[in-house]
């Protein structure tokens, strides 16, 4: 089942929740809708679920008009952010609900309902919890019941709204892995909404990054991280240092860091450069191009150390990541003077009023280091 979303728009009274969104979801795909709150990701999910509607645009499901069918006819499984379990029904009855409300013609016989619920309980590892009420379960257990309930109706499409949002950090990681395995087992087309980039990067086959009702970029987690398409994606995914480059004697430069190449052939006067912390190289000896900096702080975070560097010539603090084992090898300590130079950056040219020309972005890699 391929879902084709084209030109979806949805306005609320004071803002555009969705602004001309088009997207294709392939069968069996695991897609993450990622964005900050208010980016329209939840609205998009609710439109797919039939709980909201679009002002314009269409959704086609293998040449069928998906939006014309009601929520009950779409064959979707939806897991709500706060699960929306029926509080007056046991876990068993919650899972059986979707089967029991079918018209007599389509309703499976009692024994089959029982067997199906039992096997789902087993699948979500809650075999002994069938007679409990939702209020007697932990957050992680409720989440799994909600998932089992959604799966019971054998949906063509599984939708999850912030599936791990209400859970502890510990449970979250466990459940995440478990959900990924479940998806690989079932091969069910799955779309989930999250504001947590780590979750999206770890789980999804493809990530849809959204901002202010628009899609910023669609791609594999690797693409999103390595080749961000817009400044927003650069800043939203992972940590990044932001540098404003100007043209100086024909070369783009910021301070003492000067680029020899110019794919734009002097068309743009300035550019925004985004440099990830792991792409900042540190050295004690002065390089050909780069800044001198003072090491402010070292934050040891397990295998990686985050380093704050103050570059006086830019009046800017940069963050660099180095492997913890390199700290002593390079003799790094707070207060020392050293040199720093980017090894890779994503550059967006800017026209005079500051607008970035995103389609002309340039993934720059230093010649001396082999690009990844």
């Amino acid at each position, binding site marked *: 089942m391929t879902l084709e979303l084209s030109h979806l728009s949805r306005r609320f009274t004071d803002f555009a929740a969705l602004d001309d969104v088009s997207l294709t979801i392939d069968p069996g795909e695991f897609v993450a809708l990622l964005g900050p709150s208010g980016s329209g990701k939840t609205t998009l999910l609710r439109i797919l679920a*039939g*709980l*909201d*509607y679009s002002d314009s645009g269409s959704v086609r499901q293998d040449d069928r008009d998906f939006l014309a069918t009601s*929520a009950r006819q779409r064959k979707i499984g939806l897991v709500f952010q706060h699960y929306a379990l029926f509080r007056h029904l046991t876990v068993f009855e919650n899972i059986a609900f979707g089967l029991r409300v079918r018209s007599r013609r389509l309703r499976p016989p009692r024994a089959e309902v029982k067997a199906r619920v039992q096997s789902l309980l087993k699948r979500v590892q809650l075999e002994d919890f069938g007679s409990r009420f939702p209020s007697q379960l932990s957050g992680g257990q409720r989440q799994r019941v909600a998932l089992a309930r959604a799966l019971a109706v054998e949906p063509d499409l599984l939708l999850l709204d912030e599936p791990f949002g209400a859970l502890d950090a510990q449970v979250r990681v466990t459940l995440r892995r478990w959900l990924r395995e479940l998806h690989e087992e079932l091969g069910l087309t799955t779309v989930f909404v999250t504001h947590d980039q780590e979750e999206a990067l770890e789980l999804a086959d493809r990530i849809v990054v959204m901002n202010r009702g628009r899609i910023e970029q669609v791609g594999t987690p690797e693409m999103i991280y390595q080749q961000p398409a817009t400044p927003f994606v650069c800043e939203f995914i992972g940590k990044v240092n932001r540098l404003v480059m100007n043209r100086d004697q024909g070369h783009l430069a910021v301070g003492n860091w000067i680029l020899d190449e110019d794919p734009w052939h002097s068309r743009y006067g300035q550019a925004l450069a985004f440099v990830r912390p792991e792409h900042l190289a540190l050295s004690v000896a002065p390089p050909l191009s780069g800044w001198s900096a003072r090491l402010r702080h070292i934050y040891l975070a397990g295998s990686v150390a985050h380093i704050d560097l103050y570059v006086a010539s830019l009046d800017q603090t940069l963050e660099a990541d180095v492997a913890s084992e390199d700290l002593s090898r390079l003799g790094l300590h707070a207060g020392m003077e050293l040199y720093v130079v980017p090894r890779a950056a994503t550059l967006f040219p800017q026209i005079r009023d500051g607008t970035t020309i995103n389609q002309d972005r340039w993934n720059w890699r230093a010649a001396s280091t082999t690009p990844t």
Partner: protein
Amino acid sequence: MRHRILPGFGISLGYALTYLGLIVLLPLAALVWKASGIGIEGLIHLLAAPRTLAALRLSFGSALLAALINAVIGLLVAWVLVRYRFPGRRLFDALVDLPFALPTAVAGIALTALYAPNGWLGSWLASWGIKVAYTPLGVLVAMVFVGFPFVVRTLQPVLESLDRDVEEAAESLGARRWQTFLRVILPMLAPALLTGFALALARAVGEYGSVIFIAGNIPMRSEIAPLLIVQKLEQFDYAGAAALSTAMLLFSFVLLVVITLLQRWSSRWMEKTR
């Protein structure tokens, strides 16, 4: 709002509006229409009549006083029921709703029997020279009775949800108990207290059943406005009854608007601190 996801919007709203229109709005329209029949001059003539004025003054005056008394005693009772543990607390808590549950006519004759000059309380009070039944004081007693639960029941949930931390913070800053109460607790209770006051007031102004028995209904002295309406009706003065009713409604309405504004003003910090 083209399609709605949950079903039944049209039918539920349509039914509710039709029902409300037929049961409440249409009759009220008839009231206003009938009242307008006597004209402005007639209205002034009616309202300026000494007997009407006396009745309105009694109704609104006693209702205000009763609501004030209820605000004070209701605050105390709510405080005691929420903050202290003592034997029989739950029983007394349940008892607070009695004026809601007891039919007004029953309350009326019971209060009269109690406060009549030969009644249990009435004879004792009479020995002090205080007459309750068949005087404006009796009207007040009945109005306090019917309005009592409102203040307690609006305050209780707020008192229960009050953050103890705030009080402890006040005490840790050196505030005495009464200072904590006046400066910290009371301002937080103010919106609920005003709501309870308004509800008690509205109820007391219109109260009929429990008042007419104990009031004695002496014209110019202990005759309440609703009784005047009934009397006009019995004399087939429909326009007069309607006009008096409309005047009472308007008056209550203005009062409630004022109190709603006060309430909004006193709770203006609520959203900011949460």
